[in-house]
């Protein structure tokens, strides 16, 4: 059974010129695999991630059907949905500096994420937090657990975010630009970590599905099994990550060609035709 089925999903927002569909009827299925959603700003990739978690507030409107492990996400009450978020479907945001609580210690934040979904003795919670921090390759978990968000570097902050999101052992992890605020050398580590967690090695959770949302084509190709390319709210192409270079859609080809290469010999980079 597939983990998540999205059928004809649309997200619209009102504008002075009428409602605009920022996500315009997309459909896809996700098993226990790593799916990359790639596109430029405004392509609707982040809105897709938010729509799955039902995080789009009025006046935004979501239409279409989303089924997660056989449950219709649209039919759940807000209360049921809250139990779903974090416990079953989790989301890693872009910048740890804005998404961690600045007045709560790291350990307390991670523990809170766990306590919201499971009732465990205090001793067990502490042990799980410690184990989780180790799983995200933090060397001195007891010290880091006592630290606050401003004392962490970007890479460490993102590890803490990941620990918080993964500790309730969700079945699906949505990572929205998890590394774009990080340096290249740290990016690789964080993605490798997400990769390990998704496969379930580090926390023996039996693995999970991953949706990696990013604007960085080469990066997504490296860490995902399958790629959806989005433009203007629609999926223009779906392909296996290893076949990305064989992509046929002109938009995907244009995106690929516009990226400078390490071994660059072109004098001019090809650019896309724009209507505006």
């Amino acid at each position, binding site marked *: 059974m597939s983990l998540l089925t999205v059928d004809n999903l649309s997200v619209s927002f009102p504008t002075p010129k009428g409602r605009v569909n920022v996500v315009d009827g997309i459909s896809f299925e996700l098993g226990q695999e790593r799916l990359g959603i790639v596109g430029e700003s405004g392509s609707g990739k982040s809105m897709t991630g938010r729509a799955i978690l039902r995080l789009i507030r009025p006046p935004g409107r979501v239409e279409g059907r989303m089924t997660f492990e056989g449950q219709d996400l649209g039919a759940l009450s807000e209360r049921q949905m809250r139990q779903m978020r974090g416990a079953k479907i989790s989301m890693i945001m872009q910048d740890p500096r804005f998404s961690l609580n600045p007045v709560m210690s790291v350990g307390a934040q991670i523990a809170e994420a766990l306590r919201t979904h499971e009732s465990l003795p205090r001793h067990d919670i502490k042990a799980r937090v410690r184990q989780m921090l180790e799983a995200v390759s933090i060397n001195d978990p007891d010290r880091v657990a006592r630290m606050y968000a401003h004392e962490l570097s970007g890479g460490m902050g993102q590890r803490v975010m990941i620990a918080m999101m993964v500790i309730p052992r969700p079945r699906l992890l949505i990572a929205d630009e998890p590394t774009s605020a990080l340096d290249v050398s740290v990016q690789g580590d964080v993605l490798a970590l997400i990769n390990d967690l998704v496969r379930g090695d580090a926390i023996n959770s039996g693995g999970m599905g991953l949706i990696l949302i990013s604007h960085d084509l080469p990066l997504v190709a490296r860490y995902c099994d399958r790629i959806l390319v989005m433009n203007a709210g629609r999926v223009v192409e779906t392909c296996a990550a290893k076949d990305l270079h064989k992509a046929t859609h002109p938009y995907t080809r244009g*995106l690929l060609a*516009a990226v400078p290469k390490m071994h660059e010999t072109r004098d001019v980079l090809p650019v896309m035709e724009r209507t505006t």
Partner: protein
Amino acid sequence: MSVSDIAISLSNLDVAYDRVRVVQGVTFDVKRGESFALVGESGSGKSTVLKALCGLAPDWTGRMEILGQTGPHRPNRALARQCQMVFQDPYGSLHPRKTVDAVLSEPLAIHGIGDQDAKVKQVLADVGLDARFRFRYPHQMSGGQRQRVAIARALMLEPQVMLLDEPTSALDVSVQAEILNLLKRLRAERGLTYLMVTHNLPVVSFMCDRMAVMNKGRIVEIAPSTALHDGSFSDTYSQTLYAASGGAG
């Protein structure tokens, strides 16, 4: 190489913020017409070198020469004619309540240069913006269009040296390609010298002739950008950075 061939010359440059030295012993020369990159991670001091060059980081010691003049300890008018900076974020670097026309005319007014109307029209054409953008506000434009305006503003005084601080890292890849092409064309047309700060090695491969790799405030290696083709770096830190950026693959 005679002295007049050198646009920027730094030797043993130390820069401090509040007595904390963030850049130490930086030495390099950039030839006239050359495109030189400073690469490194956040906190490596690469942007600080640019700030020192335009007088925004006054607490520096060592030797700094720009087109034969000694470097500044505060922003100065004569230097502004020669050397201009383009910043990373086009959303933050343009005044939200000023039209493109006002932004572009201001440097001319400050320096008492006439013929503003014709110059503004010309520079808009040079950076590939239609004349209808002239009386728009920043919020009425896309990120790429704003970055074109920021580049146009830097070009108004017809400088010879451009300091580029991550000029495309806030932009989408297709827009990045347009801006990189624009910068490359402008350099060829006007014989500009570029000193560019970036963390994106493929961009260096496309734009620059040589690069200095910085780590913890020091330059660890200066290499031609052809080193990016095969990864022939001698320093271990440069090799790590190269591998983390995806290497030759």
